[in-house]
C-alpha cells in the first residue's frame, strides 16, 4: 500500500446498520438505570459521618497512578494480577475506541483514520479485545477449576464473566463479518477479526454474512448497554469505586488509621450503626471486589477462627444494599415508624428513657446483624492490619473492627473477661499486667541507669514500656538495650515510676477514653522533662508515640531500638564482633514493619550479629504474619487448636533457623510460647535483636561461650 492510501485508511461507521436512532433511544434508559444506580450509592455514602480525605491532592493522584492505573497491589497475586490487567486494560482500550467512534459519528471529527486507525483502532483494539477474552477464561478457570477458598461464589460473578466474554466475542463476530462482507483492504490490521472473516467466508454466503452481521451488531449493542446499566448494581461498580477509594485512601502509615472520638460532642461512642461510620467507611463497602485477599492473610482466620475481614465488609455492604432504610434508621426495624430520624436524635440523655417511638426508629444495630460482625469474631482481631496491606483497593477493615469494639467496650461494657482484667489494671496501675510482682525499675538492678530529674539532662529517653519492665523475659531485652546505649556512650535516662502504658492496648481493645487519659498523662510527663528524642524496644509504644501522641501535644523524634542501635553501629559507636554465624530468622512486628515501614534496621542488626546468617520466612516484611499478640489479644487465652503464635512459630522453625529474632515484647512472649509448645524437635531460641547485638558487643569473659 502506498503512503497516501495509508493516510486514508478507515472504515465506515454503522456499515450495514439501519435505524441508528434506536441506539440513541436505548441510550436514555441505559443512562437512567445506570445513573440511578450511581445516585443510590452516592446518597448512601452521604449518610456517613464526615472524614477529611481530599487533602494533599498530589499525593492522592500519585497513589491513583500506582494502584489504580499500574495496579501494583493487584499484581502481587501473579495470576490474578495478570488476568485483571488483561481485562481492565482491555476495557480501557475498548472504551477509548468506542469513544473515538462516537466522536467521529456524532461530533464530526475525523480521528478514526490513517495510521491511528490502523495501529490503534484496528490492531490494538483487536489485540486487547482478545486479551480480555483470555483474561476472562483465566479468571473462570481459576474461579471454577482451582476454586480458591478466598473467593465468594455468587451467580453474579459467573454472570459478569459470561457477559464480558460474550460482549468481546460479539465484537469479533461483528468485525469479522464486516471485513468478510466488505472485503476490507485493511483486514490484516485486525488479525482476530480477520480470522473470523476468513472462517465465515468459507462457511457462509455473502447474504447470510450481512444478515448475521446486522443481528450481531444489535445484539452486541443490547448486551453492552445492559451491562453498563447493570454495572452499578454489581461488584463491577468497583471500576468506579476502586479508583475513588484509592484516591480517598488514608495517606498516613497504617499505624495511624484509628479515628479519634470527640467525647464532648459524640452521642454514641464507637459504631453500632451504618450511619456511625464515615462516608469513606461506607465507600469502602462498595469498593470491595470480593477478592478475599484480606481474609486469606488474616492470622485469626488462617488458624481457623471466625474472624473474616472480607465477610465483615460484604456483610455490612449487603445490609446497606438490602435493608438501607432500616440500616440508616429511615424506617422502624419492625416496619412501624415513618420519616427520618437521625442516630443522634435517638440518643436521649441518660436521665430520660427513650420514648417508644424513638426506640422504634432506631437504626439497625450492625454488631451481630450478620455472622461476620458477631462479637466473638470482633474479639479475635489482632489489629495486625494485614488485611489493609493486602487490599488492592485500600479498604480499611481493621479500623471498622476497632470502631465496633469501641461500641462494645464504651457503650455496653461487654468484652472478654481477660481483656477486662487488663483494662482494669491499666486504669488502676497504668500497666496491663494484672498480678505482676515486678516493678518498673527491676530490670535496671545493678546498672547505673538515670531517672527522674536526670531525664531533662539526657539526650535520649529510653521508653521501657510495660512489657519491657514488667515481664521477666523482656527485662533482659531492656537490660541489653541499656547496656548497648551505655557502651556507645549515649546519654540516656528512663522515666522509671513515672512511666505508664502508652495506651496502645486500651485503644486497640476499644477503650478510647482510657487511651486518651494515658496519652495525656504520658505526654504531660514527657513534656515536663522537655523530652525530644525517644528510643523504645516496643513497636506498640513506638507506633503510639510516632502516630498518635502528636495529636495530644507530644512532638517527639521516635526510634525503635533497632533503628537507633543500627545507627550506632553505622557511626562506629558500637563495634560488635560476632562469634559465630548462626542461622537467624527475623519476625517482623506488625506495628514496626507493616504499620510503620521499618523493615531494614532490625535485619541489619541480625546480619551484623550473625555474620550474614539471616534467613527469611516465607511471610516476611509487609506480608509478615502476626505473632497473635496485638490488639489486646495477648491477654486472651486462645483455644489450644487455634493459636496464631503456633502457626507463626511453625513457620519460623521450618526455616531451619537456630534463633528466632524478634523486636517486640509481645512477639517475644507469643513466640517463646509458640516455639515452646512444639513437642521434640530442634532447640530454637527466641532472642530480641538487641540481645543478639549485645551478645556480639559485650565484653568477653575468657572461655565463656556466648549465646
Amino acid at each position, binding site marked *: 500500500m502506498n503512503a497516501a492510501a495509508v493516510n486514508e485508511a478507515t472504515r465506515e461507521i454503522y456499515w450495514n446498520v439501519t435505524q441508528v436512532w434506536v441506539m440513541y433511544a436505548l441510550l436514555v434508559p441505559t443512562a437512567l438505570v445506570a445513573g440511578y444506580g450511581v445516585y443510590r450509592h452516592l446518597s448512601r455514602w452521604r449518610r456517613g459521618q464526615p472524614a477529611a480525605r481530599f487533602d494533599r491532592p498530589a499525593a492522592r493522584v500519585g497513589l491513583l497512578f500506582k494502584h489504580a492505573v499500574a495496579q501494583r497491589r493487584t499484581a502481587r497475586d501473579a495470576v490474578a494480577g495478570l488476568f485483571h490487567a488483561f481485562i481492565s486494560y482491555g476495557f480501557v482500550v475498548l472504551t477509548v475506541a468506542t469513544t473515538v467512534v462516537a466522536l467521529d459519528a456524532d461530533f464530526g471529527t475525523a480521528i478514526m483514520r490513517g495510521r491511528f486507525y490502523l495501529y490503534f483502532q484496528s490492531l490494538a483494539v483487536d489485540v486487547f479485545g482478545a486479551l480480555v477474552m483470555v483474561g476472562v477464561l483465566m479468571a473462570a478457570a481459576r474461579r471454577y477449576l482451582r476454586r480458591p477458598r478466598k473467593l465468594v461464589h455468587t451467580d453474579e460473578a459467573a454472570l459478569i464473566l459470561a457477559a464480558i466474554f460474550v460482549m468481546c466475542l460479539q465484537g469479533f463476530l461483528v468485525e469479522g463479518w464486516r471485513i468478510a462482507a466488505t472485503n476490507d483492504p485493511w483486514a490484516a490490521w485486525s488479525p482476530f477479526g480477520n480470522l473470523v472473516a476468513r472462517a465465515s467466508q468459507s462457511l457462509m454466503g455473502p447474504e447470510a454474512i450481512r444478515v448475521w452481521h446486522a443481528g450481531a451488531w444489535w445484539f452486541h449493542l443490547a448486551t453492552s448497554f445492559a451491562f453498563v446499566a447493570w454495572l452499578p448494581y454489581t461488584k463491577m461498580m468497583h471500576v468506579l469505586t476502586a479508583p475513588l477509594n484509592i484516591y480517598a485512601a488514608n495517606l498516613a502509615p497504617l499505624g495511624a488509621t484509628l479515628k479519634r472520638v470527640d467525647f464532648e460532642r459524640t452521642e454514641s*461512642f464507637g459504631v453500632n450503626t451504618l450511619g456511625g461510620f464515615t462516608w469513606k467507611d461506607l465507600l469502602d463497602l462498595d469498593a470491595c471486589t470480593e477478592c478475599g485477599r484480606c481474609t486469606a492473610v488474616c492470622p485469626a482466620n488462617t488458624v481457623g477462627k471466625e474472624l473474616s475481614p472480607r465477610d465483615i465488609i460484604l456483610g455490612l455492604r449487603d445490609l446497606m444494599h438490602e435493608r438501607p432504610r432500616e440500616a440508616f434508621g429511615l424506617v422502624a426495624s419492625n416496619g412501624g415508624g415513618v420519616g427520618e430520624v437521625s442516630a443522634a436524635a435517638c440518643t436521649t440523655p*441518660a436521665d430520660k428513657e427513650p420514648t417508644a417511638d424513638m426506640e422504634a426508629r432506631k437504626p439497625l444495630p450492625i454488631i451481630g446483624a450478620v455472622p461476620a460482625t458477631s462479637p466473638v469474631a470482633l474479639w479475635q482481631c489482632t489489629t495486625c492490619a494485614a488485611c489493609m496491606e493486602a487490599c488492592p483497593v485500600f479498604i480499611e477493615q481493621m479500623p471498622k473492627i476497632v470502631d465496633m469494639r469501641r461500641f462494645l467496650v464504651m*457503650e455496653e*461494657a461487654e468484652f472478654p473477661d481477660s481483656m477486662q482484667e487488663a483494662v*482494669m489494671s491499666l486504669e488502676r*496501675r497504668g500497666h496491663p499486667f*494484672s498480678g505482676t510482682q515486678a*516493678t518498673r525499675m527491676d530490670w535496671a538492678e545493678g546498672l547505673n541507669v538515670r531517672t527522674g530529674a536526670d531525664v531533662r539532662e539526657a539526650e535520649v529517653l529510653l521508653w521501657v514500656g510495660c512489657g519491657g519492665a514488667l515481664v521477666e523475659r523482656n527485662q533482659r531485652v531492656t537490660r541489653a538495650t541499656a547496656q548497648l546505649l551505655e557502651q556507645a556512650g549515649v546519654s540516656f535516662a528512663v522515666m522509671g515510676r513515672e512511666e505508664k502504658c502508652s495506651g496502645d492496648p486500651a485503644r486497640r481493645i476499644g477503650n*478510647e477514653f482510657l487511651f486518651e487519659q494515658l496519652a495525656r498523662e504520658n505526654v504531660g510527663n514527657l513534656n515536663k522533662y522537655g523530652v525530644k528524642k525517644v528510643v523504645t524496644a516496643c513497636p506498640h509504644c513506638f507506633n503510639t508515640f510516632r502516630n498518635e501522641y502528636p495529636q495530644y501535644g507530644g512532638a517527639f523524634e521516635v526510634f525503635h531500638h533497632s533503628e537507633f542501635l543500627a545507627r550506632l553501629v553505622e557511626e562506629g559507636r558500637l563495634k560488635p564482633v560476632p562469634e559465630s554465624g548462626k542461622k537467624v530468622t527475623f519476625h517482623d512486628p506488625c506495628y514496626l514493619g507493616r504499620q510503620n515501614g521499618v523493615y531494614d534496621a532490625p535485619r541489619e542488626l541480625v546480619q551484623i550479629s550473625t555474620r550474614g546468617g539471616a534467613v527469611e520466612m516465607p511471610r516476611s516484611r509487609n506480608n509478615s504474619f502476626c505473632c497473635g499478640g496485638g490488639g489486646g489479644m495477648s491477654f486472651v487465652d486462645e483455644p489450644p487448636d487455634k493459636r496464631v503464635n503456633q502457626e507463626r512459630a511453625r513457620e519460623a522453625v521450618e526455616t531451619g533457623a537456630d534463633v528466632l529474632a524478634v523486636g517486640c515484647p509481645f512477639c517475644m512472649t507469643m513466640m517463646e510460647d509458640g516455639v515452646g509448645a512444639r513437642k521434640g524437635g530442634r532447640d530454637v531460641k527466641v532472642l530480641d535483636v538487641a540481645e543478639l547485638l549485645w551478645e556480639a558487643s559485650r565484653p568477653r569473659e575468657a572461655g565463656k561461650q556466648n549465646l
Partner: protein
Amino acid sequence: MNILVCLKQILDPEVPARDFRVDAARREAEQGSASLVTNIFCENALETALQLRERAGGAAKITVLSCGRPSAEDSLRKALAMKADAAALVVDESDATPDPLAVARVLAAAIQKLGAFDLIMTGREAGDWGAGQTGGLLAEELGLPCVSFVDTVEVAGGVLRLKRQTDAGWELIEATPPVVVTVTNDEHNVPRIPKVRDVMMSYRQPLTKLTPADLGLSDEARAADGYYEVAELFIPQKETRCDFVAGDTLDEKVDAFARRIVEVTRAL
C-alpha cells in the same frame, strides 16, 4: 427499697511486695507510687445491691457512702459509674490510724442523717488492715441486727433472704429489714465494669460531702471507749539460713540433726 452500701478506699492490694513500704512512725503503709482502689469486698457488696435492684425491676434506690480522705471521692464516682443512685462522702482528714469503732460511729451518724435504709451493706473486711470489724460495729451503733459473710440477697414478700457462707456450708437466713449485712465474694457478685459513658456521667452527678463535725461528732466522741490501737507496724523480715550438721557417722549426723531441729523450734 432503700439500700446503702459502704465503700472503703484502700491502697492497691496488688502493689508489688518490693514496692511495699511502711511508715513505722506513723504506723501506716506508705502510698508510694501505688494507686488507691475500692476495697474488693465493698465492690462485691455494691454488685450484690445492683443485682438486687435489677431483680426488683429498678424499684430500689442505692446510696453509696464512704468515710475517708478526699481521694475517696474516686471510689464513690466509680460506684456512681456502676449505676449507684446517690453518693455521700464523710471527709476525714485526721491522721489517726483508723479505728473500726470510730469509723463505724461516723458511718452510723451519716446513715442516720442520710435517711432511712432497709438494707445496709458493707464488705466483710478491707484489703488493707483486714480487721473485719466495721460492719458488725456499725450494726451495733445503729442498733440493728447484723448478718455477716453474705453472698446472696433476695427479697421475698417484705423479708430479706440472705445466703451466708460458713465454714460448714451455707446458712439461709430470713431477716426483716432494716438489717446490716457484710458481704463476701462469690462467683455471682464479681463487680461489673462500668460503661465509659457512665464513667463520664459520674463526674457530673451530685455527691454529698460531709465532715464529722457536720454529723455532730467531735474527735473525742468518735474515739471514746476505743479498744483498738496499732502498737507497731513493720514488714516481717524473711531470712533463709543454711546449717550443715556435723557428724562422722550417719547415726551421729541424724542425732545432731534432730537436736538442731529441737533447738530451732524452741527458739521460735
